[in-house]
Structures are given as structure tokens and as C-alpha cells.
């Protein structure tokens, strides 16, 4: 069942990545295939492993309220950062762009940055960060309560803590989520060659194919 769902979601990823396809066709080979021919967003309950099951209220940097489940339907590159970050976080943004370029269809990917420092990452600070780094509409910066941030970090295995100089020390991880919010790969470190993460996605496909 799990395997089937993963395969299904990955097929959806591929469909979404196929050139010239704006709305992916519903895969029909699996018995549990959702009937999603007309809808870009897969209907039905989220799979048991979906990070999007975390029921938390977030605010996007443009001011709109958002649930993680709203991200459903496209692959997502996600990172937990803070905009006051002097060194690593701008580099993570560049790494996310590079990783997307290495994927079959970069334009199908959405980018999500979640703040580890919601006290100081106001919407204004996040908008400033988005402008300063020329982030397109494909990018969403999210702010949540400290409790919800902690929950998401625990789900994604992000380690973090405040440091005495007012920064937040944190894992440098880029999370690759499938269209249903399952974590299918992570890229660790800065300036990492995205080939390994791309291969991990392909391996996940091969294992289930």
C-alpha cells in the first residue's frame, strides 16, 4: 500500500514534469489511484507519511494564511532558515535554485522557506529577504508559532538552537517533498552537488518501478 502510494505520487511528479503538461493526467494503473483527471490537486486523504498532515496555521510572506496541505499538487523544495542569517541561508537559497535546475522540469517545482526565528522574521522582514534575493512567485516564505516550527523541524529532522549572538544555529538541509508531501530526499550541507539528491529521487522511482 505504502509502495503503491509512493509510486503513484512519483508518477504524478513525473507527469507534472512532462514538457507541455500543465495538468497531470491521473495515473490509472494502481488500484487506489485517485480520480484526478480534472484536478491538478490530488484529492483524497493525505498519505500516512505526508508531512502535510501537520495541522498548523502558517502565514505566507505575502500575508495570506496557509496550511501545509495547500502546497499539495507539486513537488516542493523546502528549507528551514531565518532571514537574519548572515552566512548560510543565502547560500541555501542558491543551492535550492541549483537543485531545481538539476531536476527534469525546474518550472514545476515550488520553493518554501520556513522561518526558524518567527519572533524576528516578521512578514516585512521576510518580504525584504524575498526582494533582496530576487525570489520569484514560485517561492513562499512561511512564519508559524514556535510550537509549530518545532513540530515541523522534528518531522524533517532539522536540528536548531539559538546562539548567544542572536543567530540560530541549524542544520543546512534541503528537503525534497513529493506532490503529496512525502519526504523523498534531503540534501545536506552548503554548495553540495545536487547530483546525489537528484539520484535519490531517481532511485526512489526505480525502487518502486
Amino acid at each position, binding site marked *: 500500500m505504502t509502495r503503491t502510494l509512493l509510486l503513484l505520487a512519483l508518477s504524478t511528479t513525473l507527469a507534472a514534469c512532462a514538457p507541455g503538461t500543465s495538468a497531470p493526467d491521473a495515473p490509472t494503473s494502481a488500484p487506489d489511484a485517485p480520480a484526478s483527471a480534472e484536478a491538478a490537486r490530488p484529492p483524497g486523504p493525505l498519505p500516512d507519511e*505526508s508531512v502535510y*498532515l501537520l495541522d498548523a496555521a502558517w502565514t505566507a510572506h505575502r500575508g495570506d494564511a496557509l496550511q501545509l496541505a495547500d502546497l499539495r499538487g507539486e513537488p516542493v523544495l523546502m528549507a528551514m532558515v531565518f532571514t537574519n542569517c548572515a552566512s548560510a541561508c543565502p547560500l541555501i537559497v542558491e543551492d535550492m535554485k541549483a537543485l531545481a535546475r538539476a531536476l527534469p522540469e525546474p518550472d514545476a517545482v515550488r520553493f518554501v522557506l520556513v522561518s526558524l526565528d518567527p519572533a524576528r522574521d516578521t512578514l516585512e522582514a521576510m518580504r525584504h529577504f524575498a526582494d533582496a534575493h530576487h525570489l520569484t512567485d514560485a517561492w513562499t516564505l512561511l512564519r508559524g508559532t514556535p510550537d509549530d516550527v518545532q513540530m515541523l523541524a522534528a518531522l524533517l529532522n532539522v*536540528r536548531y538552537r539559538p*546562539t548567544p549572538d542572536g*543567530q*540560530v544555529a*541549524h542544520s543546512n538541509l534541503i528537503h525534497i517533498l513529493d506532490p503529496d508531501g512525502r519526504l523523498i530526499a534531503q540534501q545536506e550541507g552548503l554548495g*553540495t552537488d545536487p547530483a546525489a539528491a537528484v539520484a535519490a529521487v531517481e532511485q526512489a522511482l526505480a525502487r518502486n518501478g
Partner: protein
Amino acid sequence: MRLRPTVPFRAAGLWIALAGLAAAPAAAYTPPAGMARVGGGTYAPLYRDADGAGDVAVAPFYLDRTAVTNADFLAFVRANPQWRRSRARRLFAEEGYLSHWAGDLAPGGGAVARQPVVNVSWFAATAYARWRGHRLPTVAEWEVAAMAGTRDADGRGEADFDRRIAAWYGRPRPAVLPAVGQTPANHWGVRDLHGLVFEWTADFNSALASSDSRRAGDADSGAFCGAGAVGAGDFGDYAAFLRSAYRGGLRGRYVVPNLGFRTALDAPARGPR
């Protein structure tokens, strides 16, 4: 977020807090039933930032005198069906969650009512604490409480303090866990911080050592923002290192047969201004 169970303990807590404001101040300093007041202190983390700073001031707080038991946890899963063994999402509690129980509502087999509950994930422990209107203690709070000897708030000077802890770590886990509350109460009246099970903390994921290397060094520096931060300040406390390494290996959904938890609460500051 709505992992939070439905029982209205929080509302009750609000009224108790309001009542406390109106009542004589002394009443507000009495810990809730089953909890002890830990007077706070300073936690010296094992990691040190490049500038040498890093001590964490810990305000007074209330801490459960003993770990949460199978009986306590049974009440929680009765009231919150989504946390029963057969229903809990694998995202929030891996396979093996409450596996020592005989059934959804039956601690049994080897699980006795007064034993500490184990095989619970961080998400489950957090949900339990919120259901009670409490929270999990932070690493800093837990370590400050665990620093106390039977006599002093800082027991590390007591002759047999380290030896007793090391002796416990050296013993294999018993096939059947003992009941809570059988080790001596420490300075604050808290028991079993050493000698029974390991315990979840709210920020268990605050230790920034990678899975491959738990020491400072260039090998890790690319993996973390603020990477100078990894590196121990005190190599003397072997037991604290062991706990830190244990936490470093955990993920929020993990369940372990020797890992339980207890809950905490903010305490009002004591004394007149």
C-alpha cells in the same frame, strides 16, 4: 496546531491561574500535585560557541516528581483515540509505538501500571503534556534538575554522585522495568532522573552534531549554519555526554524501550520585589 487533544485542561489552567493571582501569593508557589519546584540555575551546555559564551540561565519551573507511567498514559489514550496504538499516524510515532502493551487500552503483558511508559515518540509525549496543560522540559531544565544530588542543588560535588549515575549506565536494561519513584529523591524532591529510563526533552533536536561525527571540526562545519557552535566545553561530565549523544541520535517519531518522559510547567518567580 491541532495534534493537541480535545480535553479542556487549558481552560481549567487559565482559571486556576486567575484564581492564583487573586489568592495569597504563597498559594501560587505551591507546585501542582505530583510536581516539584526546581529552583532554576545555570546549564553549561556541552557545546560552546566560538566566543566562549553559551551558559543558559534556567528560570524556576515545576517538574513531575516521577516519570509518566503506563497508567497515566492509558488515561491519555482513552481520552484521545488518535493516540491509541492502532490509530497513531506512523508520521508521528514509528512502528513499535506502545508495542509493550497488550492492546490499545491494555497495558499488560510486561507493562505494569506504575512503570514508566516507554516506546512513546516525542510527538506523543508532547501531545500528552499539552493534554495535561503542561509541556516537556527543555534540555537545559532537565539537566539543571538532574544536576542536583540528594543533598545539594549541584550534586556533582557529592562523593558518589557520578559513580551512581555511571553504575546505572553500566547496567543492562532489566527485562521488566521497575516502578517509578524508587530511587532517592534529589534536592528538589525529584526522583528517577538517573537510574530508570532516558527521557524526552522539548528541544531534543537542539544538539547540532551530525550523525557521523559528534565532535567539533571542519568535517561538520558545512552541515550547520553557525557551525562554530559544535564543540564541548566540559569534557568532565561523561554522563552528560552520553545523554547528549543519545538525544543526538533521536528523531521525533522514534520510539525506544528505555525512553520515557515527564512533564514541566513554568513556575512563578518567588519572593517579594
